[in-house]
C-alpha cells in the first residue's frame, strides 16, 4: 500500500470573482522510500495539492472533497490537534524561499531546538545535541558556529540546508519539497539536490518533489506526475516520461519539445506550445489542454477525457495517447485539407 495517497482531491479557493478550482480531482500516491516528482507550470495546482496534505492553505482555500490517506488514515478528517502532531513530525515541508521560512530574530539553534522540543520529549540540552547532529547530517561546514548564527548571516544554500535539517529533524516519513532549489544558483542547486538524494537513501524518507524544471525532475524523481490546470494529465515512472515511449500526453510531449536541451542544435526552431495557460476562472469545457493542443479534435473540445491506465503504471488523460497514431492522423488531416 502506498504511504501517502491522494484520491480525487478537490481544493477550491473562494475569490471575489468566483470559485477557483485550483486542484480539481487529483489522485497520486507516494510509496515508501520513493520520490514522486510533480511537474507543471504556475497555476497548475501542483503546490496547492501538496499544501492540502498538511492543510496549509490560505484563508480562502478549502478542501472540497476527496481523501488524503496517510498510513491508511484520512487526513481530511483529522482534527487540528492531530494535524499538529503530523506536521513537521511525520510529514514535513521545505519551501522555495529559505529566507522567509526562517524566523529572522532567532538563532538557528533555537529554531532547530524548537522542532525537537515540540515533537519529542527531550531536554533542552539533548535538543541542542541533536540539532548539532542534524547540521552535520546536512553537511554544513563548521556546524557549532552556524548554530549560534542568525538566518541573515547565512548564504542561500546554507539556509536551505538548515531548512532541510529542520524538516528532517524528526525523521519524517514524507518530505514535501516545494521548489526547494528554484531560488538558488546552479552550483548550489546541485549541492542541495545531491544532499537530498543522499539523505533519502540514508533514511528511506519518501519525497514529494514539486518543481517546474524538467531537468531537476529527471535528477530527483522515481515517478512523475505532470499537472495542468488542476489535474494530473500524465503519471508514469521517470524512465517512461523521459525515455522513448510510444505513449504520452500531448502536453508532456510539448514540454519536452519546447525546452532547449544541451543537444538541441542551434538554428532549429523550438516547437513551442502555442497560447497561454487559461484563466483559472475561465477554464475550457472539454479537455483543459485542447485549446493549445495541436492534435485536438472536436471531441477534445466537447468532452473531458479521464485518466486512463495505458500500460502498467502509466496513466494518461487523453483520448489519443499513442504518439504515432495522432501524428499520422494529423498528417492525414493536412493531406485531406490540401486535397480540398
Amino acid at each position: 500500500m502506498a504511504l501517502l495517497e491522494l484520491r480525487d482531491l478537490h481544493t477550491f479557493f473562494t475569490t471575489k470573482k468566483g470559485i477557483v478550482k485550483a486542484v480539481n480531482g487529483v489522485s497520486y500516491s507516494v510509496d515508501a522510500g520513493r520520490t514522486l516528482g510533480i511537474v507543471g507550470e504556475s497555476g497548475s495546482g501542483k503546490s496547492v495539492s501538496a499544501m492540502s496534505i498538511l492543510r496549509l492553505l490560505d484563508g480562502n482555500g478549502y478542501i472540497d472533497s476527496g481523501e488524503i490517506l496517510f498510513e491508511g488514515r484520512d487526513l481530511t478528517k483529522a482534527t487540528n490537534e492531530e494535524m499538529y502532531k503530523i506536521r513537521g513530525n511525520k510529514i514535513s515541508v521545505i519551501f522555495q524561499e529559505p529566507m522567509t521560512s526562517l524566523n529572522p530574530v532567532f538563532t538557528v539553534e533555537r529554531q532547530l531546538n524548537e522542532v525537537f522540543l515540540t515533537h519529542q520529549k527531550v531536554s533542552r540540552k539533548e535538543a541542542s545535541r541533536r540539532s548539532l547532529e542534524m547540521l552535520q547530517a546536512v553537511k554544513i561546514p563548521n556546524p557549532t558556529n552556524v548554530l549560534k548564527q542568525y538566518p541573515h548571516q547565512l548564504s542561500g544554500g546554507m539556509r536551505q540546508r538548515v531548512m532541510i535539517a529542520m524538516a528532517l529533524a524528526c525523521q519524517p516519513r514524507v518530505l514535501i519539497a516545494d521548489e526547494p532549489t528554484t531560488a538558488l544558483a546552479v552550483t548550489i542547486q546541485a549541492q542541495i539536490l545531491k544532499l537530498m538524494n543522499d539523505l533519502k537513501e540514508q533514511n528511506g524518507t519518501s519525497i514529494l518533489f514539486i518543481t517546474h524544471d524538467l531537468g531537476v525532475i529527471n535528477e530527483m524523481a522515481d515517478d512523475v506526475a505532470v499537472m495542468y490546470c488542476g489535474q494530473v494529465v500524465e503519471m508514469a515512472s521517470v524512465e517512461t516520461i523521459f525515455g522513448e515511449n510510444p505513449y504520452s500526453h500531448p502536453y508532456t510531449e510539448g514540454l519536452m519539445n519546447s525546452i532547449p536541451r544541451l543537444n538541441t542544435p542551434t538554428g532549429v526552431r523550438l516547437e513551442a506550445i502555442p497560447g497561454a495557460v487559461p484563466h483559472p476562472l475561465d477554464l475550457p469545457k472539454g479537455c483543459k489542454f485542447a485549446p493549445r493542443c495541436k492534435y485536438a479534435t472536436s471531441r477534445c473540445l466537447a468532452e473531458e477525457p479521464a485518466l486512463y491506465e495505458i500500460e502498467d503504471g502509466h496513466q494518461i488523460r487523453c483520448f489519443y495517447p499513442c504518439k504515432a497514431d495522432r501524428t499520422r492522423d494529423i498528417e492525414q488531416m493536412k493531406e485531406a485539407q490540401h486535397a480540398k
Partner: protein
Amino acid sequence: MQNNQTEKKVLLRISHLKQWFPVKKTTIGGEQLYVRANDDISLDIYEGETLGLVGESGCGKSTLGRVLLQLYHQTEGKTMYYGRSIDSLAPSYVERTLKGLERGRAKLRELEARRDQLVREYEALDENARLSKKAEKDKAVKEAHSLFLDMAQLVGGFLALDDLKPVKELFLQEYRAAAALHKMKDARALVQISRNALEGRIEAAREKGKNSASQAAKLRKMDADLSARDGKIAAAESELSRIRSEIDALRHKYAGQEKFDEYERYRDTGIDLAKLRYKEMRQLRKDLQLIFQDPYSSLNPRMTVGQIIGEGLLAHNFFEKNDDRMMDYIMKTMEDCGLSSYMIHRYPHQFSGGQRQRIGIARSLAVKPKFVVCDEAVSALDVSIQSQVINLLQDLKEKEHLTYLFITHDLSVVKYISDRIAVMYLGNVVELARSEDLFNHPLHPYTEALLLAIPTTDLDHRKQIVPLEGDIPSPIKPPKGCKFHTRCKYATDACREAVPDFIEAEPGHFVACHHILDHKVIE
C-alpha cells in the same frame, strides 16, 4: 586582447570595465567597502551576433548588461560604441578633450615616467616579491594607458607631434562643423515629423471627403522649408568633408614616421559611452535597448500598451504627438511581436506573463535598436511560454539584424540561442568562446563544474550531477588571486596569489586561468 577576426565588425568594445557599488559604512571612519559587481571585464561584441552571458546569481551578469547601457555610472574602464560615427553625435567630451590636448599630453608624460620607473622596479624584483608589487605596477600602467587612449582615440598619430596647436585647431573645426550638422539634422527631423503628421491628417480628411486648402498650403510650405534645410545640410556636409580631407592630407604627410604610425593605430571612431552627458546618452538609447527579466514590474501599470510602446517613439522623435500614423506603427509592432493589435488600449495587468514579455519586447524593438540586452528575458516565464518568446527573439533578430547580449543562468537556453558565450564568476569573465567550443571543450574549471552541475532531461545522465562544493564568496571581499580558487579542485599557490590574465588560449577561445584544462568534459 585585440581581436584578429577583422572581418566581423565590432559593435561594442568593453575594456577593463569596473562597476563597484559602495556599501553603506557601518562605522564612522571605517574603510569604504564596495560590492565589486564587475571587476575588470574586457569583451568585444560583434555586430549581428548573439553573445550569451552565463553565470550564477550574483556574479554580476545583470550589472554588466546595465553598465553597457550606462544605467549605472561605470567606475572604471571604457565602453566604446561603434554603431554610429562619432561625428553623427558630436558629443561634448570630444571638444573638452581637444581643448585640453596640450595639457593632457604633459600630464601623460608625467604618468608615463612614473609608470616606467615602477616597471623597472618591478622587473628588478624576484618572483615572490613581484606578486605583491604587481597591483601597484598594473595600476600605473593602466592609468597612463587610459589617459593616452582618451587622446589617441581622437587624434591618433598626431599625438606624437611636437606642436599640437595647429592640429588641435583643425580638429576643433571638424568638431564644430559636425556639431552644427548634428543640430541641423535634429531640427530637420522635427520639421519632418510634423510634416508627416500633417500629411496624415490631410489624407484622413480626404478619405472623409474634406479638402482643406489652408492645410495643403501649409504642407507645401513645410516641404519648401525641408528642401531649404536639405540644401543647408548638404553645404554643411561638404564643409565637414573638406575639413576631413584637410586632416587626411596632413595625416598623409606624417605617415611613415615611426611614432606617428604607432599612435595612429589607436585611433578609434567609436563613442565612449561613459563620457556622454545625460542628453547625449538619451539620444543613443534608441540604439541600445534592454529587455527585462520581470515582465510585470518593468511595465508601468498605469499606462496602456499603446502608451508604453509609444513613449519611446515620442522621445526619439519618430512621430509627432498626435499623429495617427503612430498608432498604426504601434499596432504593426505589436503584431510583429505576436500581440493582437486590438489589445492596444489594454493595461499590463490584463495580460498573461508571456504576453507581458512580448509587450516589453515590442517596446524595445519599436525604436529600431541595433543592440539589445536581454536580461534573463525568459527566466521568469513558464516553461511552455519560454520557447514561444525564444522563438520570437530569434525571428526578430533575423528580421531586424539585431545584436543580442543574452543574459541568463540557464545553460541549455544560452547554448541554443548564442553564437558565443561568456561565462562570468564573481564579477569577472572567466571564459569566452563560441558556444560549441565552450560546451564541447571548456577550458576553465568553473565552466566545467557548471556544466556538470546542471540537471538534464537526458536519462543517460540521470543522477550524475557533480556538485561544486563550497559557497560563492562575497563580492565585497572577493578572494585574492584567482577568485575561483576557494572552490577549484585544481587550485595551487599561484592561483591564491596572482590574478590570471584573460588570454586567447585557442583561436577565438579566451580564458582566465593558471591551469587551463586540456580534457573534454562532455563528449
